[in-house]
């Protein structure tokens, strides 16, 4: 592994203080980014009836949003490296808000694809990359914990936004709900405001000594920033593939993402198939989200500890293997009739595995690439992850249709 440019940039992360406010901000930002495509599905039935769309047409909204969110990674990585986190997150929040507000007046599916899918997705992709990048700038020692807390935003927001959206839908119909949801997304701008830029100090000869880290940038600072940024930006995309660790990570995460979301999508259908009523089946996903909410920071805490931190990549691998094992065991420990308790236990363990993986997935990338290369690396990873993310669930669906019953699908995962 080539020595990272951080040798030139001797920045000591705060590891506390204002960093915790940044964690809150990133939590909000990531929360919206991951939960929005999921919670928007609550509105779909209503929009389907009103605009006369089929189920597959309406599902495209979420797919386009996810695709834009992931594919926009490299662009947002570049923007973050150039401008820093704060303006990008504020711009992202504004874009998301505008996208939902304009979607309020939509009367056709194409209009919704454009507004929510593309504009909303791009706004979210700006949020995603920058929130994680700034954590790398503010934390080093406690970074896994910070990452765990930040990634916990996804289940937290899912659990809170889902009933809120249901209430808004009943009260205001889908148009009013989109309007208010757009307003809520503007809170990403608040999150952006909290992300104070961190001034990078250079210890090369042409750098002047820096003032306090929280100083407002003046002219000399911007010049220094630019010269430091140049070295970061000289690592453009394709050299990452020479990094063995990066390639292994990439291959692993592609395989994981391919199978990761299928169980979530089919969990309630599986439960109903086993004879559980619809309401309890829906509860399973809530249970998973609740477990996930607590597991992510807990994993971050464990990963921050003295014993695990140096071996964090192995801990991550353990989490992935654990998740896979849980899915394999589910059909294998096949009791004559699946009881609800068994499914709840499976869901809890699934939630634990899923939470562990996602708490660590970006921490490990940060660990591999270093905070300077992280934005571009993250952008590249998410752009490539776009493909298995979009292919995974339909392929799983086809496997389901071909090889009934459900348990074969979990085995193939």
């Amino acid at each position, binding site marked *: 592994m080539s*020595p990272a440019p951080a040798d030139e940039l001797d920045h000591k992360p705060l590891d506390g203080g204002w960093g915790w406010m940044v964690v809150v901000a990133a939590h909000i930002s990531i929360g919206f980014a991951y939960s929005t495509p999921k919670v928007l599905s609550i509105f779909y039935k209503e929009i389907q*009836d009103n605009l*006369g769309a089929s189920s597959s047409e309406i599902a495209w909204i979420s797919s386009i949003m996810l695709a834009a969110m992931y594919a926009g990674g490299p662009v947002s990585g570049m923007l973050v490296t150039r401008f820093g986190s704060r303006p990008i997150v504020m711009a992202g929040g504004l874009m998301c808000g505008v996208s939902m507000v304009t979607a309020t007046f939509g009367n056709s599916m194409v209009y919704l694809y454009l507004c929510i899918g593309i504009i909303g997705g791009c706004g979210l992709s700006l949020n995603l990359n920058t929130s994680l990048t700034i954590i790398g700038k503010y934390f080093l020692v406690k970074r896994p914990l910070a990452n765990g807390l930040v990634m916990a935003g996804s289940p937290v927001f899912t659990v809170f936004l889902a009933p809120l959206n249901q209430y808004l839908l*009943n009260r205001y*119909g889908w148009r009013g709900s989109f309007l208010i949801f757009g307003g809520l997304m503007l809170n990403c701008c608040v999150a952006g405001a909290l992300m104070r830029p961190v001034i990078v100090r250079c210890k090369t000869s042409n750098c002047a000594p820096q003032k306090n880290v*929280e100083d407002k940038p003046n002219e000399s600072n911007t010049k220094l920033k630019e010269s430091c940024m140049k070295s970061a930006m000289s690592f453009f995309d394709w050299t990452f593939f020479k990094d063995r660790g990066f390639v292994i990570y990439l291959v692993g995460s592609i395989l994981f993402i391919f199978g990761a979301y299928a169980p979530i999508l089919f969990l309630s259908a599986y439960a109903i198939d086993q004879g559980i009523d619809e309401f309890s089946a829906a509860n399973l996903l809530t249970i998973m989200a609740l477990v996930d909410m607590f597991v992510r920071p807990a994993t971050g805490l464990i990963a921050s500890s003295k014993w695990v931190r140096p071996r964090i990549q192995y801990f991550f691998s353990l989490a992935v293997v654990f998740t896979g094992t849980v899915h394999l065991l589910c059909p294998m420990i096949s009791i004559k009739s699946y009881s609800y308790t068994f499914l709840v236990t499976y869901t809890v363990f699934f939630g634990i595995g899923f939470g562990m993986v996602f708490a660590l997935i970006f921490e490990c990338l940060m660990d591999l690439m270093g905070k300077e290369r992280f934005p571009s690396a993250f952008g590249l990873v998410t752009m490539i992850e776009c493909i298995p993310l979009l292919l995974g669930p339909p392929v799983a669906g086809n496997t389901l249709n071909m090889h009934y019953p459900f348990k074969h699908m979990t085995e193939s995962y």
Partner: protein
Amino acid sequence: MSASWKQLSLQILLLLVSCRHINTKTPGPTAPPLIPIDQLPTDVRSVALNGESHTEKVELLNPVNLTLECTWTGNQDKLANITGLWRKDGEEVKNSNQTVPMENDQYNLKRVFSIVNEEDLGSYTCEFGSKAKIDFVLAAPQIGDVRDKPIVSYLGDFVVITCKMEETKPEPSTWYWYKANGTDKEQIIAAEEPLRYEIKNEERNTKLVVSSLVEADAGLYFCGAVYAISTSMSQVELKVISFYEPLKPFVAIVIAVIVLVAIILLYEKSQSKKNSTAAENGTTDQTNTLTQGETNGHGESSSMRQRKV
């Protein structure tokens, strides 16, 4: 009187009875065809009861001569004779009180009912003394997929209200839509107001499109699945609100966001001003923070990963 006279008078009576019913009922679909009773198709439903009571649902589409048969194995008393009785919707059917003998260790009650129109549907009960009874609930296929939450839409917007008959139930011959007007139902005829109403009927589902909504459009809407025997109704509530209703919370949220962002940025400015004035006064503060940062970094390096990042 001869049998044919009896039949004729019965038919005339039936005719009069059905005519009366058509006039007093709330406006509904076209009156059912007046088929003479003896030309109706026949059907049989029988239930054998072991316990004390049982309810049997009977789904009917067309007028029919329905034979309802009840069999009861009796209880420990094993009476030789028991009084049998038929009730419709709780009221005793005339001339149905009879003595039922025990045959082959069971009691049998059988009666033919002419189910011609909606009035004839309902709950038919055969009673064995006051010891056992079997309920037959006669009804047209009911619309199962009922939406319990109101549909919310906006002034000037359009709304689509749907009704669906499940795959497992028979198809209705057509669909009608009604709007509640006080306690009455008024049929919506799309041809009269083509700009406002549009009804799209497919075999199993129906859509009512109401355009250019005004406040008066709010209220209950009924969709009726028409079968030869009767019409099954299902209701949906429509609420019409003005755009200002969601706009108010939206504006409140936007103002809150702007205020928060302003507070955060102003706080930061004031902090940095404080630090810069402190810097002017003395550099000791800066070095303190710098050394603190450095000691933290070095002290923890043994527990940190050894990667060169």
